[in-house]
């Protein structure tokens, strides 16, 4: 008896669709085991999480609030990933976007008419994130520095810079020692849906998704991105400039994450303070992958994962369970999704007698 792993002859479409669903189910099962070990009833816990995330107007509102930065960062990351540029720096790009928007809100508010304040902050947030993403892009394009390392390292720079600013030079003089900048003037507050905390950032996300969808499907630029992502050698052969595309894509990718930062400070906290860099940029990577790098998939998965986070917060209160449970579940989902991808390409069989059935062989061109 032995286990044989053999390559499938056709990439199974139905399996590819079922994999994310099966992964979530398996992850929930794995999480259930963990919960049981921690002394909690898994089904009660999951129900509490689900209700906490989607069980009422307040819950849904909070879920959407967390979903917005996940959507924007997820969209940004997904575009970069499409081109095989591994942007791990969404967290830092979000942070500098927040810094730039804060700067405009605090120091230019009296120089710009109120109606232009928010647009200026949007531009500032986008540009800051774009520049932050451009540095690793230029390093990769010119001397081939691995972008995983550069984007990751720049996260630390940005995160610490944020802290430096709101503890130091930008600290609210009337803050009673509470770490954070002064509150933004009203004109710098993103409008919200009445009765909720859902802010205009949601519209940014939807517009961004639409933009990306149109670019990828209908423009020359989108075509080049797809070709580079699917076969960089053929792209070079066809005269597509990989350097130009790395730069353009990272401007978009970093810019969207920067926009996420801007929308967080302008829509939620109305100041630069602790709680901006809580890992949205990293979670966005999971969002992008689970969403299969498709803009609408990213939006949907962002809502689901946000639900997971909010649900996790809920059970911390109602069931005295660590909120880390939600993070563990998120990690488990990603783990199972990546592992599940294996099954779309390979299948596992039990072979009864050694030599009783044909050896697994891949069929290819030239195999006569």
């Amino acid at each position, binding site marked *: 008896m032995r286990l044989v792993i053999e390559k499938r002859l*056709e990439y199974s479409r139905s399996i590819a669709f079922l994999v994310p669903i099966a992964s979530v189910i398996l992850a929930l099962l794995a999480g259930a085991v963990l919960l049981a070990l921690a002394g909690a009833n898994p089904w009660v816990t999951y129900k509490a999480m689900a209700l906490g995330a989607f069980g009422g107007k307040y819950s849904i509102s909070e879920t959407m609030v967390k979903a917005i930065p996940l959507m924007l960062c997820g969209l940004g990351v997904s575009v970069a990933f499409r081109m095989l540029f591994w942007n791990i720096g969404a967290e830092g790009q979000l942070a500098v976007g927040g810094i730039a928007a804060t700067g405009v809100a605090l120091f230019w508010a009296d120089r710009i008419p109120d109606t232009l304040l928010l647009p200026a902050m949007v531009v500032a947030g986008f540009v800051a994130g774009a520049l932050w993403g451009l540095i690793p892009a230029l390093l990769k394009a010119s001397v081939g520095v691995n972008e995983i390392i550069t984007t990751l390292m720049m996260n630390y720079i940005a995160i610490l810079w944020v802290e430096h600013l709101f503890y130091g030079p930008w600290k609210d003089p009337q803050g009673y020692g509470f770490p954070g900048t002064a509150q933004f003037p009203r004109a710098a507050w993103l409008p919200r849906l009445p009765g909720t905390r859902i802010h205009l950032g949601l519209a940014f996300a939807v517009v961004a998704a639409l933009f990306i969808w149109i670019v990828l499907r209908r423009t020359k630029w989108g075509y080049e991105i797809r070709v580079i992502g699917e076969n960089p050698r053929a792209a070079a052969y066809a005269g597509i400039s990989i350097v130009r595309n790395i730069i353009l894509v990272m401007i978009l990718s970093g810019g969207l994450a920067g926009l996420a930062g801007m929308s967080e400070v302008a829509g939620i906290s109305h100041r630069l303070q602790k709680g901006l860099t809580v890992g949205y940029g990293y979670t966005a990577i999971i969002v992008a992958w689970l969403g299969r790098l498709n803009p609408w998939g990213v939006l949907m998965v962002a809502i689901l994962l946000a639900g997971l986070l909010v649900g996790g917060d809920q059970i911390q209160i109602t069931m005295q369970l660590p909120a880390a449970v939600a993070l563990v579940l998120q990690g488990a989902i990603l783990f199972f999704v990546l592992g599940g991808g294996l099954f779309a390409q390979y299948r596992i069989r039990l072979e009864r007698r050694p030599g009783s059935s044909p050896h697994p062989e891949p069929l290819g061109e030239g195999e*006569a």
Partner: protein
Amino acid sequence: MSTDTPLVKMQGITKRFPGVLANDNIDLEVRAGQVHALLGENGAGKTTLMNILSGLYRADAGEIYIRGQRVHLQSPRDAIDLGIGMVHQHFMLVEPQTVAENVILGLKTPRFFLDMARIEREIAGFSKQYGLQVDPRARIWQLSVGEQQRVEILKMLYRGVDLLIMDEPTAVLTPQEVDELFVTLRRMADEGKAVIFISHKLDEVMAISDQVTVLRSGKVVATVDTSQTTKEELARMMVGREVLFRVEKKPVEPGEVVLEVHNLQTLNDKGLPALKGVSFTIRQGEILGIAGVAGNGQRELAEVVTGLRKATNGRVLIAGCELTNCSPRRVIRERVSHVPEDRLGMGLVPNLAVSDNVILKSYRDPPLARGPFLDRRSIRRFAARLIKAFNIITPSQETPVKLLSGGNLQRTILAREISIGPRLMVAVHPTRGLDVGATESVRNLLLKQREDGAAILLISEDLDELLTLSDRIAVMYEGRIMGIVDVEEADVGEIGLMMAGTEVQTLNFKV
């Protein structure tokens, strides 16, 4: 010299893979002292059948008899123990080790102490007996491809095989090396061994074999004595219809000079000189064939001309325009098309649709693009037109290109490259791995381009193809052109010598 009981008898062999019946009830008999050719197009089932015989695969049905005894082969080791060995197309040699070390690789004896001197003597003995000249102390990386193949054969002889299976052995050999191989195979047959020779090359099959079994779509079409058949008949059996051997090559008056290459030098991927000063010109309506064993700079030449590799010295001019070291995009704009050797790795984007692939060179401009946007309707019309005109067999325009067969992949590439209306076409091994039908259509497409006034740089390892299609042939060896001859006056022997590095004083050195 043959005996009554066949050395090997395969009866009713059937082998199924998901989606395809690779071998359908095949019967095959090979006698000692015989060179038996297994002929068929790609996908006919030849390699599968031999993989079953050599123990690599197991048949779903059927029996194998060796010297009259029924056998069950569980692995290649069983096959070798019974005297059957296979030399594959891609050699399985350890480059840093010596010939002798490779020959004894995997053998149960000697167990612990190596008496290399004795082993080397034994190898030398086989070498002499079968005309397989090679130094047992040489390291594999030092040997030519032909010599490496000899090592593979020696491996089998050392293991005492009586039946040697050779899978497409001549793909990597110069004409002289092919002749030497045939001498060896003949000698082996005379000594009482049997040889199965897998090939799709009709001339070689006619030259070397005693019997031919023709496979088509997994079935045996016929087994005939070579002396009783002709190339045309074999081709008809292989393909199932009449095959034209003479392609329609009309006389074309060469026009203006399109491509000029002056003293081109460049490095290969390892940083060593790949081109050491190559010069030639090609005119409109002319095909210049580049002959030579793979690895002598042909690939680098194609890459420099198409802008994919930097030249360290020398010039490339297209229609008088200096294009040395210009980007591929610039070269494409000058209407230079490139049919690359690596179809799925470079010439196509496997996961994208057929329609996405055919626009790869022309998506930037109208009518396929409008400003920054792609005009999807124009693209659909364009793709439909190309699919029809070039006979690309695909379920739909949107099918990912990786699902197409080899012939259709090449047709897709050619459709795209021809659709830009090229002034110069660089075609690298355009018919490699294609069956007879696809090869015929690719060659006719190239000739049509020639008639329409394109200049073609044709790089091929198939000397027959070069002789059929080219107007002039340049032979490359170690980064230099050894000579350029008019195809009318070409002498295959001379070309073979040039391919192997001998400078031949030809009277027709036309640059």
